[in-house]
């Protein structure tokens, strides 16, 4: 693990992985979308509205997976002071926030025709909204200090504290009565979803993950470049103030 905390090694690794992860994302999302919109049957009760699920559910998973990754990276940054862990935690936050928002929006669009309401304050929906606020809070906090180091430390603590929300989101539908239906895929006794519908769902889910890896590597690379520029600028300012 510690071997990969080296920025130079990360850049080499990123260069090697990027063509595969971006190619995989295009392939999976392309085939996933085709299966989701054309190559799969409509639901016996919901009709074609259930196709929203092919974006909604992978978005929800992404929102949670990105958060778990952010929390683990934050813990690594706090404990072992890995600069790269901190940098990647920062880089994954906007991606997670965007997918959480997408999950809330698509869920709302599905909820109106199916449930008869855009939004209810049940445990699942509320905990997902809290996840969005955690992301927004994290992003605001890390840039709220003049010293980026202090910003990351405060952000890392927030990310770790907010991690208790993740099991609450997952199990909210089992612990309390909610309007939101219980889990269909990751549950005891196997999925309650027909194989013809599980295929596009999984293609989309893995496509989203491949997209995330791609974006994370690109953003990580950009962050490293930005840090180099910052260091060079500081050196320049120091040099000129000494009158050299």
């Amino acid at each position, binding site marked *: 693990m510690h071997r990969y905390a080296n920025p130079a090694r990360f850049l080499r690794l990123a260069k090697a992985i990027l063509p595969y992860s971006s190619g995989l994302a295009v392939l999976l999302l392309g085939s996933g979308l085709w299966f989701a919109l054309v190559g799969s049957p409509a639901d*016996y009760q919901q009709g074609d509205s259930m196709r929203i699920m092919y974006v909604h559910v992978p978005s929800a998973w992404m929102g949670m997976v990105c958060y778990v990754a952010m929390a683990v990276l934050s813990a690594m940054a*706090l*404990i*072992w002071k890995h600069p790269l862990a901190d940098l990647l935690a920062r880089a994954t936050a906007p991606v997670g926030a965007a997918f959480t928002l997408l999950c809330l929006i698509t869920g709302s669009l599905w909820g109106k025709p*199916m449930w008869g309401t855009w939004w209810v304050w049940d445990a699942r929906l509320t905990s997902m909204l809290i996840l969005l606020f955690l992301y927004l809070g994290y992003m605001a906090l890390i840039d709220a200090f003049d010293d980026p180091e202090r910003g990351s430390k405060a952000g890392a603590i927030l990310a770790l504290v907010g991690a208790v929300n993740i099991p609450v989101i997952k199990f909210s539908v089992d*612990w309390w009565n909610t309007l939101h239906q*219980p889990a269909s895929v990751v549950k005891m006794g196997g999925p309650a979803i027909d194989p013809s519908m599980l295929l596009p769902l999984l293609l989309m889910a893995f496509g989203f993950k491949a997209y995330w890896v791609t974006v994370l590597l690109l953003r990580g690379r950009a962050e490293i470049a930005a840090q180099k520029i910052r260091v060079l600028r500081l050196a320049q300012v120091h040099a000129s103030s000494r009158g050299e």
Partner: protein
Amino acid sequence: MTRKQRRLYFVLLGLVALGAASALILTAISDSLVYFYTPSDLVGKPQPEGRRMRIGGLVQDHSVIRDGKSVTFVVTDLTHGLPVTYAGILPDLFREGQGVVVEGKMGTDGTFLAAEVLAKHDEKYMPKDVADALKKSGQWKEPKAN
């Protein structure tokens, strides 16, 4: 103990304490976190008149009676049932045997006066022909309440 180890134990201890605290709080306020009560929850607990609440369950088979603009039906959790009257637009998924959540208050005669009816979807997704085949072969499992 090195500083790294100290930080590691500090973070782990903090997470355990935080997890335990949240678990205690969530268990303590569990009653107000539920989105709806079931008809069985209400048995033996007379509700104050005019208190707004939500009841969830299945629409009992053959219980839906439409009368002009208003509709009456029974919400059941398969143990107890609660008669409901409602005047308004029903969601698309509303049908007998389907999960619903009704919001409103208890009337004086023991029927529930709903101001809003929401359909509750179960976790099953399947194409129509699969559903038809299951029903035909007798393998169809009716949805559970809540």
